[in-house]
């Protein structure tokens, strides 16, 4: 293997018998909560990560206990749409097998944390019973497909959802490993001839070089952050109907501190396609990345680097060659912002008298659905589900929408929310537009707190906002515990990225509509420094912003940071405060 330069994961995948590895055996080993090293990589494809509680790492050894291992499970819910029945099932699982919370992610789905090995299989089966799964929610495959929030909002949203669901199914791995290991499905093949009998027409034995993410936007909302993903579709709408799609490729957030060859990147415009071409185009983008992507260095294996290295033109040409048709010129469109409009909202087609139903978008701080004294969010949502008053939609901003609500159900829902202390009020627009990744204690890559820290930081910054009178101004702020960018911080007007416990890099200057990346403004800032740096900028913004000027644009105009016009310029002309 000496001259084999491939990344270790490539060999693991190759030897895994289509993602089986020794997972089944590992589940049988009762003396440890861990699984085999290589299986750590394989289980991702099944929608799960092995983690350990980092809060207690210090004490375990002297208590003669191994690390406090448990599994994170991520569901695959295209477009984030769930029935009330499914919600109830998911809620049950949270308390029966997980840590009692449901965690809405930044990609329209749920995660469970704290599922121990002995419960993993039963949890998978419970999820399956709810007609859901975790297949390909993680791993080097096409991940959960995000579509513009709420399929019920309009005809176009429904069309976006239908495309998203179709793509998710079309690009799903075909291996029988998942059913075999978790659902006691009949063995697809004996150990020997895995690759032969159980084949992956799209993925082969090596799958993709890296994760692959697909989203679908319906302007003017860019809630899915189209520029942050490998593959994106922007709905081109005429008379409320989708007539075709602008296709974007090569977006991504992840980077590594100190490695300038890695950087977040906003997606490029690939071209325009008709509805019936959409799936084929997606498939070809995926297979070209499969064949061209970097399989030696996982830090540069995402599609965004393939585009950087091979060039957009070459990539487009190859896609068109494989698709057998040329892509059209992108059509004009306009995005207004990336946030979720909170509160009640009626279907857009209502005026046309088609669908008069209502939709309530609830702010869920950092996506963590749990009961707190005074606000029993989890119980409340469950009560609503049990009454069957709505469908549920997980958004790309870690929020939840109670969708497709009749006028009659609306009043009932309002009563239940009240009874559980659930309000649509948020203390400030800054908080309403904020996101934080999970980070500690479960995330193995976290360098600093995020989900557990941001709410308190915002409370402090709200004092500064008051001084500037900006409490009701929309400013997008996102935090992550490491540079991987799970809350898309480089597309936030104010971005925090953890470097060390209590210390964050501060990024400014991203566009409110998600079309421009931010730039590093301060390094290793603790809370005091953060407040000291931001308060004067808030003041200045309040005083000297132009009419309608967004905070991110102001930071660039006022010269706090230079504009980042392309991903490969992310590390260029930085002036630290």
């Amino acid at each position, binding site marked *: 293997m000496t001259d084999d330069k491939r990344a270790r994961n490539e060999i693991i995948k190759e030897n895994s018998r289509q993602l089986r590895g020794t997972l089944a055996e590992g589940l049988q080993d*009762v*003396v*440890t909560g861990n699984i085999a090293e290589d299986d750590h990589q394989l289980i991702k494809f099944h929608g799960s990560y092995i983690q350990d509680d980092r809060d207690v790492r210090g004490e*375990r050894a002297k208590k*003669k*206990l191994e690390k*406090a291992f*448990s599994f994170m499970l991520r569901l695959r819910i295209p477009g984030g749409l769930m029935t009330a029945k499914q919600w109830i099932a998911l809620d049950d699982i949270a308390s*029966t097998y997980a840590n009692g919370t449901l965690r809405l992610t930044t990609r329209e789905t749920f995660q469970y944390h704290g599922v121990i090995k002995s*419960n993993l299989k039963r949890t998978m089966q419970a999820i399956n019973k709810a007609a859901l799964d975790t297949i390909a929610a993680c791993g080097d495959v096409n991940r959960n497909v995000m579509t513009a929030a709420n399929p019920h909002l309009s005809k176009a949203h429904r069309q976006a959802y239908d495309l998203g669901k179709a793509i998710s199914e079309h690009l799903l791995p075909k291996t029988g490993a998942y059913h075999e290991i978790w659902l006691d499905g009949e063995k697809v093949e004996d150990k020997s001839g895995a690759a032969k009998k159980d084949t992956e027409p799209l993925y082969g034995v090596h799958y993709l070089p890296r994760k692959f993410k697909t989203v679908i936007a319906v302007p003017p909302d860019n809630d899915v952050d189209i520029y942050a993903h490998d593959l994106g579709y922007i709905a081109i709408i005429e008379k409320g109907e989708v007539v075709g799609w602008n296709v974007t490729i090569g977006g991504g957030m992840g980077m590594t501190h100190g490695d300038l060859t890695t950087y977040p990147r906003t997606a490029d415009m690939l071209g325009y396609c008709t509805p019936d071409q959409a799936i084929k185009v997606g498939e070809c983008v995926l297979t070209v990345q499969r064949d061209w992507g970097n399989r030696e260095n996982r830090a540069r294996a995402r599609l965004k680097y393939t585009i950087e290295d091979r060039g957009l033109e070459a990539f487009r040409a190859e896609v068109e060659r494989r698709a057998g048709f040329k892509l059209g010129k992108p059509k004009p469109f306009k995005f207004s912002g990336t946030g979720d409009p909170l509160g009640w909202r009626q279907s857009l087609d209502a005026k046309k008298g088609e669908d008069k139903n209502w939709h309530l978008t609830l702010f869920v701080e950092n996506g963590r659905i749990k009961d707190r004294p005074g606000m029993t969010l989890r119980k409340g949502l469950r009560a609503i589900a049990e009454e069957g008053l709505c469908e549920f939609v997980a958004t790309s901003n870690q929020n939840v929408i109670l969708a497709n609500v009749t006028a009659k159900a609306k009043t009932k829902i309002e009563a239940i929310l009240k009874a559980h202390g659930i309000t649509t009020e948020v203390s400030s627009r800054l908080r309403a537009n904020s996101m934080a990744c999970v980070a500690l204690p479960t995330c193995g890559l976290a360098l600093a707190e995020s989900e557990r820290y941001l709410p308190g930081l915002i409370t402090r910054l709200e004092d500064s906002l008051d001084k500037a009178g900006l409490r009701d101004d929309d400013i997008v702020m996102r935090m992550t515990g490491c540079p991987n960018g799970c809350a898309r911080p480089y597309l936030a007007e104010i971005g925090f990225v953890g470097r060390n416990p209590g210390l964050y890099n501060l990024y400014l200057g991203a566009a409110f509509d998600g079309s421009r990346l931010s730039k590093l403004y301060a390094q290793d800032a603790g809370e005091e420094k953060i407040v000291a740096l931001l308060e004067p900028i808030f003041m200045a913004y309040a005083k000297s912003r132009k009419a309608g000027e967004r905070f991110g644009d102001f930071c660039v105009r006022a010269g706090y940071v230079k504009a980042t016009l392309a991903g490969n310029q992310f590390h260029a002309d930085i002036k630290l405060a």
Partner: protein
Amino acid sequence: MTSIPMLPKNAPFAPEDIDALNKVVAKTTPLQRSWLAGFFAGFEAAQGGAAQPAAAAKPRLPLTILYASESGNCESLALKAKKVAQKHGLDAKVYDMADADLALLAKAKNLVVYAATWGEGDPPSRAIDFYNALMSDAAPRLDGLRFAVLALGDTAYAQFCEVGKKIDARLEALGATRAADRVDCDLDFAKQATAWTDGALGKLAPADTGASSATVVHVDFKGGGYQADDDEPQFSVENPLEAEISALVNLNGTGSTRETWHVELAFQEPGFTYLPGDAIGVMPENDPELVDQLLRAVGLGSDAALLLKVQKGYDVTTLSKAAIENFAKLTGRADAKKLLDGDAYTKFAADRQLVDLFETYSEKMTAEQLLGLLRPLPGRLYSVASSLKAHPGEAHLLVGAVRWDSYGKKRKGVASSYLADRRKMGDMARIYVKPNRHFRLPEDGNKPIIMIGAGTGVAPYRGFIEERVELGAKGKSWLFFGERNFTNDFLYQLDWQDHIAAGALTNIDVAFSRDQPEKIYVQHRLWERRADIQKWVADGAHLYVCGDEKGMAKDVDATLLKILTEAAKGDEDAGRVKLKELTKAGRYQRDVY
């Protein structure tokens, strides 16, 4: 090793003559020995005339010593009694009820019984068959029999010395004559028991023994004239060892509902030895705050010297019937006395401690009066969790903290909180060894062992495996462990992982009751794995059960019976017989508490 009287080194003979005589004596039967005794007695009587055999040297009286013992107290008392019997000219045989039957009783002329009470007024497990037979109609008349019973118990239990009492009454009912009155001993039984034994054997002894007759030459055995049946440990309740606490760790992870302390005790004393399966006794001290409450309740709050005395030496928690009785007598409180009527006691005593009595019926008293009410502070036993071979100069314990809230008070177990709360690393603790001959690894290291334990019941198995590693034993081993949650309550998890990796532990099955909706306990795992268990047993496996009696051992026992019954094609009696065989053969051993 049976006990033949040997001439002590301090006998009035030359050493080589002592050896020579002992060679002969060693082979003698009781009859021959009595004959010799009679012969020389006759010779002496003949005023130095020509030696001639005494016409008929009457044989010494036979004595049957019977014991019912779980943790060995009655057993060692019985073995001590055998030695004492020699002095009284009695020819004693000692029987464990486990190996005795009614025929033996029918034959017996003189009988001494040492009986412990377990469970809630139950006989020790190994004695159950004999006990039931004795209580049944099958029991023979015992008219010619003279007997005496010593009962061991613990006043902390409502059914104090129940088994001893029942046996005593039953023997009388069957027509036997009581030679000495029964005595019911509390945990501090040592002195009382020795005195009773001497007295009772004196009464049973042939009338003409002792000074009045010369048939037996009285010999002072204190010199340790013969091989002891059992090597009494050098360190005992009466004579504990000061050991240093060299490690003190709560093994349960943060967030656990459990609190289980791993305690390492270090000592230089080479005489302090133990074997895996033994228990280590800890002489605790009371929580000074509790003692202070108690003293204040009786108006002795300011007496610091008294506080220290009580803290170190007296039981201030056990709310026994006896305590209430004495309290009522002393104070003349009729209302307190009422607590002894009907189920009033059980109602009041449940979840309460002695201090509640003193506070409820607050009565002033003198220090002397108070001490008169308190029994000595008993030691607490802990199965040793280490092998002395693997950890020379150390003994490890696994101590579950006993805590509960009741009647507005935070309650603590005396010894467990003494170790968990009031001791820290580097402090000393007074300990002793409590051998347990009935919880031992098989002599043959190639025999498979199946170890079943929940919670602290896993402790001795850590010692077992360490011992087997040191001995290079090749036998297979299988651990069944149960607790509440995998993540935080897997006691000694890393040790088990190492032993498995090293091949020292062959199988492990775990049952964590609170990790999933339905409760899973060790007995469920046993049942799941019954096929293999049956194989192992067929291959001569030894079965061990350790831990909580009520919480686990009963259910495990029932499940093992089910498993053996299944192996016997569903014939439950055959299963029961098999389980008994295993017990008798020492292949099914329990250490439950």
